[in-house]
């Protein structure tokens, strides 16, 4: 799940920034990718729609890197399976 998720997050960001997926990795910060906070919120929304989840507002604004986004989603999906 995590590997697939990372791949999908990278693909969506690559589509958004119109750059090859190979130039994006888990450690990339949104700043490095030239993404504004508005871009980050929009990318998060697109992932939410695709995965059928919803991150809380405070989660969304603490996301500053690809890894943060993967972690946020993983946490949410794990919480979902546990309940």
């Amino acid at each position, binding site marked *: 799940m995590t590997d697939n998720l990372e791949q999908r997050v990278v693909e969506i960001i690559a*589509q*958004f*920034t*119109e750059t090859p997926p190979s130039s994006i990795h888990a450690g990339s910060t949104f700043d490095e990718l030239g993404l504004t906070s*508005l*871009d980050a*919120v*929009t990318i*998060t*929304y*697109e992932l939410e*729609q695709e995965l059928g989840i919803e991150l809380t507002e405070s989660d969304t604004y603490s996301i500053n890197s690809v890894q943060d986004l993967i972690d946020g989603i993983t946490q949410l999906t794990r919480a979902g399976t546990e309940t």
Partner: protein
Amino acid sequence: MQTGREVVVTGLGCITALGVGVKQFWSSLCNGRSGIGPSADPDRAALNDAPVAEIPGYQPADHFNARSQRFMDRISQYALIAASEAIQDAGLEFDAELGERTGIILGNGMGARHTVDGALEDLYAKNIPVPPNTIPKAIISGPSSHISIQYGITGPSWIVSTTCASSNHALGQAWDLIRSGQADVVIAGGTEAPITVPTFKAWQALRILDTVTCRPFSKDRQGLVLGEGAGIIVLEAAEHAQARNARVYCRLAGYGCSSDAYDLTKVSPAGAARAIKTALKTADLEPVDIGYINAHGTGTPLNDSAETAIIHGIFTTHAPNLLISSTKSMHGHALGASGSFEFIAVAKALAEQVIPPTANFTTAGDDCDLDYVPNIARPAEIQAAISNAFGFGGVNAVLAATR
């Protein structure tokens, strides 16, 4: 009554039903070619072939990358396309100093219909949550902000919303900014993108849309035809333009505006007449100096006869000598952007000494007894022109331009 600095037109740009660019726009106008017809856009199939003046074959991806499209409604897209042409045409390059001395004042009547109508349809009909780019994309000041960001223009910028008079008010306010010394250059004009299915149907419900085409001043006219697009005019302090040897199309010499305090949709002869008189007065022009009027000329039964009567009232014995045309017969009525298209037509008419016609003209309507330059453009020596815009809500704005 000339006060303040002289203002000239140094750049023009547009995207309309006649295509992208002023060259295409002006050659269509001079050939009396109308851009009106049934929509070819599959998203507009529910209009059932009602006539519209849509930008032919417009695809956002031909002009903007995917990321820009996410944050730009069509009102911003059209404005940027037209601004890019106008700024290039004016030969301007913005550094920090010029950026600070430049403003952006645009008209828009209907807001970001594609974004708002689309989000509502998704939410109510498909239960899709509203995406976070909706507000940034839908802000009505998006067009001026995008131009500011793109070119590093840091002077005053805002959007004027006075329905069909929006562009003329925007150009008038831009004129004031330059005259008063608050700016040396203003990117002015208007933008509109009202052809979504719900917004079109709302106009249709008013029963003022023509079901065939736009036929201003003709006996068989039924109403207006909705258009879309943007027109941008670079206005510049004459001394600034002169210092950089810029090419000048014409002077924006006067501006008059008024409110009717009368009715939401009906033209008040008194209010419109006051706007024309003020435009002439501020330009130091007498009625007899005017050679051409780009009429508001919507093609509605009420407007065209009322406008004719207003022109008779002000121009009296000179009225029969005037060349009058409604270019809405070709670019349609793009509401808040219409005045910008029409001012471009006026600037080109003064520069080229050719009057664009009223297309689709059949026989003159009752009470329409002036020279509407029917169907065929006419070379003419003109020194001065006015452009009328009378908007819903009883708002009037008239521009006066000279060679």
